């Protein structure tokens, strides 16, 4: 299958290894990966902070950048949710029904990584090997906006030599929340404290999730406490092989 990768601005700028892992994984599964060269950002930060009308140009740009894509995958649930739920609504509110229709169609063929693997490609066993003890943080937007359910867990459970351990209070938010982390830093940090404590309590060597933004928050808390527990994106685990 020809699959277009929406890297997301955060992965593009800060976590290129997550993009490389996604490319490697999809190629190993026999698919052709394209990376539309004009892509930038889905505008989620604007949309969620009340600057939606400001982001109309960003949305238009995104729709144009991916116009030729048949199937799009992004290693981020919150960016997919922004594309799938936010873009068309914004275009409609701005009185651009044409753009809204295009955005809606693009949203329908844009998938978060675990959705793409399980629902579109029909695989849970991706040939990965990861000999580590891993705990899984189900990010809020994967859980509640995309409702990916147990898809990531099924993928992880099929990874050879991976030991999956429970994360206490797994479904509680890590406290990132985009600009929330800057607008309400005390509350964000208090939520992070509890998340880090739970990660440490889990006994895992690796905390994984499907969103680099949440992992940036959790990872930032772990290294600040000089913890040896690492944060690793789902794509990197699934791309890992013998």
């Amino acid at each position, binding site marked *: 299958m020809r699959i277009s990768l929406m*890297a997301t*601005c955060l992965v*593009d*700028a*800060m*976590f*290129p290894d997550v*993009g*490389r892992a996604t*490319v490697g994984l999809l190629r190993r599964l026999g698919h052709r990966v394209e*990376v539309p*060269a*004009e*892509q*930038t950002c889905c*505008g989620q930060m*604007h*949309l*969620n902070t*009340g*600057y*939606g*009308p*400001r*982001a109309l*140009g*960003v949305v*238009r*740009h995104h729709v144009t*950048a991916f116009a030729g894509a048949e199937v799009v995958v992004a290693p981020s649930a919150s960016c997919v949710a922004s594309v799938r739920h936010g873009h068309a609504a914004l275009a409609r509110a701005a009185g651009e029904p044409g753009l809204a229709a295009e955005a809606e169609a693009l949203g329908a063929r844009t998938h978060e990584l675990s959705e793409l693997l399980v629902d579109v490609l029909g695989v849970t066993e991706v040939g990965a090997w990861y000999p580590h003890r891993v705990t899984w943080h189900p990010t*809020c*937007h994967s*859980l*509640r*906006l995309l409702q990916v359910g147990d898809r990531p867990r099924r993928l992880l459970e099929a990874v050879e030599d991976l030991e999956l351990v429970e994360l206490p209070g797994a*479904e509680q*938010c890590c*406290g*990132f*929340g*985009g600009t*929330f*982390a*800057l*607008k*309400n*830093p*005390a*509350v*964000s*940090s*208090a*939520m*992070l404290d509890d998340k880090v404590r739970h990660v440490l309590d889990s006994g895992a060597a690796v905390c994984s999730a499907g969103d680099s933004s949440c992992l*940036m*928050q959790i*990872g*930032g808390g772990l*290294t*600040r406490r000089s913890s040896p527990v690492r944060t690793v994106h789902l794509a990197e685990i699934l791309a890992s092989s013998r």
Partner: protein
Amino acid sequence: MNAADGGATRIPVSTPGVGHLRAERPFPTSAREAVADRALRANLTAATTRIRAKRDAAVAEVPDWAELRAAGAAIKDDVLAHLDTYLVRLEEQVTARGGTVHWAADAAEADRIVVELVTATGASEVVKVKSMTTMEIGLNEALAAAGIEAVETDLAELIVQLGDDWPSHFLVPAIHRNRREIRDIFLSAMPGVDPGLSEDPAALAEAARAYLRARFLSARVAVSGANFAVAETGTLAVVESEGNGRMCLTLPETLITVMGIEKLVPRWADLEVLMQLLPRSSTAERMNPYTSFWSGSTEGQAFHLVLVDNGRTATLADPDGRAALRCIRCSACLNVCPVYERVGGHAYGSVYPGPIGAVLSPQLTGVAANPTLPFASTLCGACYEVCPVAIDIPTMLVHLRERVVASGAEPAAERAGMAALAWVMSRRRRFDVALAGLRTGRLLGRRHGRVRRLPPPLSAWTATRDLPRPPERSFLDWWDEEGRR
């Protein structure tokens, strides 16, 4: 005045709501102090964790919960779409059964009406139950100014009142207090209390019981709120756990009920749905212990119903915000909210705290009076998931954030930054230039491979967590240079 659009409702829109709906200080400031209060956080985490688990179990028992939830939302939407018709029907029915209906455009008018009604009876003391709406309108202060003492009879509200405090939760107004604190409050403020009072819950309840029983027997006037009003028969309903409400509602010669105009339902049959949703969502009970219904005046008791707008019609006028008026005050959203769990109710500065408060309070007052509450959320979505009437609080928060931004309330630097970022993100070559700038950030974090300190506003991040050192090249650069093949 505008007319509320959409649906069939044509109701004039009142002035913004006033009363205890807005904070004196911005939410981030109050929240920072609340987060630092270790005892408060321990009380809140213990209480919310316990009730979350109980609520999940109570809801899991109901196989058709999703359908009930959809039905609850539909009932309330119908109420909002035909509020004009149903309110008039309610008034007709209450009046036909000997009650008197009063209409209050805002908190000040509602206070004035109640004070006049109490004054006319000659009473100098009232007993109260289900006090949230009366807290909203500041009724106790208005009564005190007229020389009338109000006694809260719900145990938790009594604790709050004796502690000269404010409620911090709908269902458990004293959730921020532990037993020891409650005993200390009783010892210092409850007349006639046994000085040897222990912190055993049964002993605390018994002390409150002895104190309140005397007040029930002497009070000639009661003031209540209401959970529901049934328009077709003019029947009011109060749902409670202690039975104190029932004594309040039945013993005094005059009963004055203060109710928000959105609290009504058209038919008794609607309660079949809402009375399944409410107890399981709030106390995690299959059915609450006491549910009282009354229609108009009863023998030996005069009845007045005060219908309060106080910003509700303004909320109704906003198609993207009006669903907040579906709320049945169950408090499930407070109990699951990760922000509420860390800061408690007082940080919100309104009698309506938590996620629903963050969307309701700014709508009742207008966003200009409450510009920080819509940002008091990570948009995690836990509130929407548990809401028994399916209020999409995260989407509504985003809508209100847009209204705050449109009002120009956000800092100029933020607005400029967001505008610049939108410009950058609208063309790849602009983003590439920005990424080249980001790479100069590699000068930071050379020692640890992590960025540990940044100037404001990013210092808000690095105060408590690291940032990764920016990579040598972006993902798209890697793709161009070697990834593509």
